[in-house]
C-alpha cells in the first residue's frame, strides 16, 4: 500500500530554496545597490508555483489509486534514531494532506502574487518574500510530514515565520511586541504538543512513530494516557489556532503586513491545529471525552470572539476576531468527530477569509495604511473590484445560502445536531447570527454611506491588477468552493467528505431529513437576522456609536489581555526581578558570602595575635612545641 513518490519532498523544499536564495540576496544587497523588486517577486513566486503544480500532480496521482490505498510516501533519510525512537524525515500524502496541500499552495501562490503589488516599494521587499517562502515551506512540511515530529518541525517553523512577519515593521516596538506575544503564546501551545507526542511515544511509539504505524497500534493505547495525549495535543492546537485561552495573540498579530494576515493568520497556519486533530482522528475517536472538551472550547471561543468582533473598529481586527470565531467552529466540528466537516470549513474558510483580508488589504493600501473603519465609508465607487469581491467574501463568511461558507458552516451545525449536542448547535446558531451582523457592519461602514474622511477618500484609488486578479480568483473560490461538498439534501454527493474518508476515522450518523432541514433553516434565519440588523444600523448612514456598560466591556475584549498581564506577565517579571535582585545575591549566593564573611571575621580575630614582634612569634613557637611535647609524652608514655 505504500507508494514511494520521489517528488513529495520537493514540495516543501522548493519554497525553502527560494527562501534561502532570496534571503541571501537580500543580505548581500540591502546595504548597497538594490535588486529590482520584480526579480524578487518572480523568484519568490517560482517556488510556490511549482509547489502548486506538484500538489495538483499529487492530487491526480492519488485519485488514480484505488480508494483505501490512496497513500503516497517518501522516506528521505533516517532523521533521529535512538533506541525505540525511530523517526525518518518522511513525507506522506493521503487524501487529507493532499486537500490541505492543494489549497495551501493555491492560496499561498495567490497571496505571493498579491504581495508583489501590496509590498511594492518597501525597502525590505526581498526579506518579505524570503520570509513568505520560508513560511510556505514550513506549512507544507507541517502538512506533508509523515509523523508527529516532522509535523512539529513545520509547526514551529510556521510559528517562527509568523513571528518574523508580524514584527516585520520592526522599527515600531509595538509590532515586535506583538510578534513576541505570538511566538511565546504559540510556544505555550507547543509545550503541550511536545509533551503530547512524548506521552504518545512512550505509549505506543515503539513500533514506529509515524501516522501509519501509530494508527495501527492506536487501539493499544491506555485510555487515561490517551486522554492525556489528546488533551495535550489540543493544548498545542489552542496555541496555534488561537482558541481559549491562548487566542490572545491573533488579534495583535494583525500588526504584520496584510498579505501575512491573509496567508498565515487566516488561511493556513491558524488552521494547522484543526488539521492536526484531524490527523490524529484515530486517537480522538477513542477518547470521546477529549472530543467533547474540544467541541465546547471551540464553540465557546467562537461565541467569545464573535462578541469581540462586534465592537472592533480596526478592519483587520474585525477579521481577526472573525477568524478566531470561525476556528472555533472548526474545533467544534472536529471535537464532535465530524472531521470532514471541520476540514471542509478549513477549506472554504481559507478562500473567503483570505479574500476578505486581501480585500481589506486593498482598502488599506488605497487609503495609505488607514485601518480604522470609522474613517472610511463610501468606498464602493472608488474601489469597485474590491467592493464586489469583498461582497462575495462577506456573504460567504456570513453564511449566505449557496455561498461556500454556508455549506461548510451548515455541515458543522448539522453534525452538532446529529451527534445530539443541541446546546452546541444553538450556540453555533447564535454565533452565525453575530457573524452575519459584524461582517456586514464592517462591510456597510467601509463601502456604503458617506466618506468619513474626505481627504483620505479623495486620494483612494483602485489597486493594480497584480492585486485584484488574486482577489477575483479567490472570490470565485469563495462562491463556488461550497459546491464541492454539497450535501444530499441539495442533491450533492458530499464529494470532499468522501474524498477525505480514507484518511479519517469518523462516525457518520445516518442523515435524517428533519434534522437537516432544521439545521439549514436555522442557518438561514440566523443569516437573515444578522444582516438585517446590520443594515438597519449601518446600511445607509454609518455613525460611530458610543459604547457603554457591557458594550464598552466587550469593546475592551472583556479585559482579557489586561487580566493575563496582571496574572502572568507582571508576576513573571516581578519573579525575575526578585530572583536577580534578591534571591540571587542573598539566598543562593548567601552561603558563599557568609563563608567569606566568616573568613574575614576570623582574620580579624587572629589579627590580635599578629603583634609583629619576632620575639613574640618565637614565644608562640615555643608554646606550641611545648604543648606538642606534652601531648607526645602523654600519648607515647615515654
Amino acid at each position, binding site marked *: 500500500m505504500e507508494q514511494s513518490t520521489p517528488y513529495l519532498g520537493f514540495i516543501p523544499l522548493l519554497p525553502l530554496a527560494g527562501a534561502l536564495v532570496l534571503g541571501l540576496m537580500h543580505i548581500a544587497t540591502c546595504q548597497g545597490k538594490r535588486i529590482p523588486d520584480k526579480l524578487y517577486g518572480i523568484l519568490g513566486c517560482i517556488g510556490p508555483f511549482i509547489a502548486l503544480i506538484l500538489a495538483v500532480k499529487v492530487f491526480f496521482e492519488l485519485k488514480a489509486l484505488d480508494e483505501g490505498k490512496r497513500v503516497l510516501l517518501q522516506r528521505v533519510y533516517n532523521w533521529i534514531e535512538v533506541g525505540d525512537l525511530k523517526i525518518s524525515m518522511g513525507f506522506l500524502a493521503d487524501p487529507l494532506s493532499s486537500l490541505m496541500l492543494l489549497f495551501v499552495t493555491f492560496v499561498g501562490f495567490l497571496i505571493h502574487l498579491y504581495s508583489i503589488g501590496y509590498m511594492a516599494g518597501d525597502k525590505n521587499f526581498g526579506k518579505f518574500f524570503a520570509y513568505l517562502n520560508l513560511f510556505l515551506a514550513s506549512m507544507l512540511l507541517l502538512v506533508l510530514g509523515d509523523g508527529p515530529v516532522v509535523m512539529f518541525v513545520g509547526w514551529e517553523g510556521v510559528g517562527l515565520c509568523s513571528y518574523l512577519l508580524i514584527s516585520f515593521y520592526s522599527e515600531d516596538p509595538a509590532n515586535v511586541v506583538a510578534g513576541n506575544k505570538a511566538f511565546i503564546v504559540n510556544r505555550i501551545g507547543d509545550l503541550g504538543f511536545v509533551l503530547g507526542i512524548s506521552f504518545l511515544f512512550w505509549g505506543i511509539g515503539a513500533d514506529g512513530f509515524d501516522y501509519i504505524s501509530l494508527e495501527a497500534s492506536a487501539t493499544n493505547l491506555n485510555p487515561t494516557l490517551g486522554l492525556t495525549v489528546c488533551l495535550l495535543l489540543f493544548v498545542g492546537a489552542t496555541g496555534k489556532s488561537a482558541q481559549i485561552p491562548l487566542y490572545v495573540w491573533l488579534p495583535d498579530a494583525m500588526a504584520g503586513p496584510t498579505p501575512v494576515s491573509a496567508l498565515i493568520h487566516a488561511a493556513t497556519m491558524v488552521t494547522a491545529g484543526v488539521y492536526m486533530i484531524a490527523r490524529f482522528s484515530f486517537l480522538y475517536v477513542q477518547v470521546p471525552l477529549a472530543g467533547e472538551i474540544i467541541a465546547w472550547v471551540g464553540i465557546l471561543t467562537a461565541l467569545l470572539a464573535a462578541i469581540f468582533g462586534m465592537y472592533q473598529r480596526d478592519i483587520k481586527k474585525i477579521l481577526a476576531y472573525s477568524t478566531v470565531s470561525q476556528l472555533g467552529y472548526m474545533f467544534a466540528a472536529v471535537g464532535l468527530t465530524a472531521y470532514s466537516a471541520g476540514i471542509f470549513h478549513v477549506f472554504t474558510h481559507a478562500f473567503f477569509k483570505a479574500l476578505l483580508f486581501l480585500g481589506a488589504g486593498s482598502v488599506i493600501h488605497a487609503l495609505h495604511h488607514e485601518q480604522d473603519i470609522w474613517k472610511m465609508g463610501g468606498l464602493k465607487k472608488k474601489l469597485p473590484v474590491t467592493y464586489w469581491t469583498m461582497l462575495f467574501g462577506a456573504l460567504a463568511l456570513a453564511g449566505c445560502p449557496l455561498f461556500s461558507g454556508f455549506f461548510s458552516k451548515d455541515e458543522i451545525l448539522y453534525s452538532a445536531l446529529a451527534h445530539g449536542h443541541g446546546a452546541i448547535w444553538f450556540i453555533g446558531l447564535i454565533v452565525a447570527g453575530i457573524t452575519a451582523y459584524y461582517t456586514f457592519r464592517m462591510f456597510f461602514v467601509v463601502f456604503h454611506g458617506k466618506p468619513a474622511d474626505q481627504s483620505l477618500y479623495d486620494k483612494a484609488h483602485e489597486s493594480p491588477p497584480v492585486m485584484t486578479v488574486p482577489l477575483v480568483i479567490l472570490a470565485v473560490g469563495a462562491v463556488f468552493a461550497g459546491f464541492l461538498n454539497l450535501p444530499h439534501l441539495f442533491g450533492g454527493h458530499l464529494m470532499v467528505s468522501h474524498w477525505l474518508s480514507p484518511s479519517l476515522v469518523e462516525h457518520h450518523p445516518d442523515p435524517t431529513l428533519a434534522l437537516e432541514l432544521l439545521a439549514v433553516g436555522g442557518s438561514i434565519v440566523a443569516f437573515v437576522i444578522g444582516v438585517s440588523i446590520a443594515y438597519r444600523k449601518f446600511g445607509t448612514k454609518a455613525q460611530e456609536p458610543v459604547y457603554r456598560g457591557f458594550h464598552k466591556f466587550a469593546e475592551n475584549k472583556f479585559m482579557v489581555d489586561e487580566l493575563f498581564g496582571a496574572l502572568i506577565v507582571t508576576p513573571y517579571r516581578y519573579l525575575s526581578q526578585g530572583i536577580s535582585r534578591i534571591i540571587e545575591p542573598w539566598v543562593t549566593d548567601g552561603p558563599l558570602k557568609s563563608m567569606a564573611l566568616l573568613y574575614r571575621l576570623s582574620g580579624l580575630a587572629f589579627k590580635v595575635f599578629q603583634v609583629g614582634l619576632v620575639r613574640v612569634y618565637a614565644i608562640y613557637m*615555643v608554646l606550641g612545641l611545648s604543648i606538642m611535647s*606534652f601531648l607526645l*609524652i602523654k600519648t607515647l608514655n615515654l
Partner: protein
Amino acid sequence: MTETLLFYGFGLLSILGALGLILFKHPMNGAMSFVITLISLACLYALLSAKLIFAIQLIVYAGAIMSLILFIIMFLNIGESDLPEERGRWFYLAGGIVAIGPIAILMQRAFKTLPPGETAIVGDGFGGVQEVGMVLFTDWLLPFEIVSILLLVALVGAVVLAGKREVSE
C-alpha cells in the same frame, strides 16, 4: 676518670657561659661569656674524639664568627643608652622555663631510649681529617655543594645589605 672530671668541668663551664650570655645586660659581656661556652664545647668535642670538629670549632666559631660578632659590637660602639630597656626580662625567663619544661623532658626521654655507650678516647681512624673528608666528599657531596652555594649566596647577600649606600636620601 680524668675524662669524667674533664667532662663535668667543661660541661659546667659551658652552662655558666650560656647563663652569662642570657643574663648579662651588655652584649659585650654576653659575647665574652659565650666564647667561654664555645671553647668548652670545643674541648667536649675533643673528649668525644672529634679531632677535626674540635679544631674547626675553635678556629671557625670561637675564632672567626665570634670575632666578627665582637668586631661588630665594638664597631657600633654600643653605650648604655643604646641598650633596649628590658623590663619584663625576669617574667619572660620564668615563663620560658615553665614552657620549656615539657620540651626538655621530651628530649631527655627520647635520648633515654638510646643504648648507653662509652666515650673513651678513640685513637686513629675516627674523627680525623681523613675520615671526615672521606665521608664528606663521597656520601655528602651534594649537600656539601649546596652548602657552598649557600655560603656564596650569603656572601653576596651580606655585601648587598651592608654595602647599601643610602642613595634615596
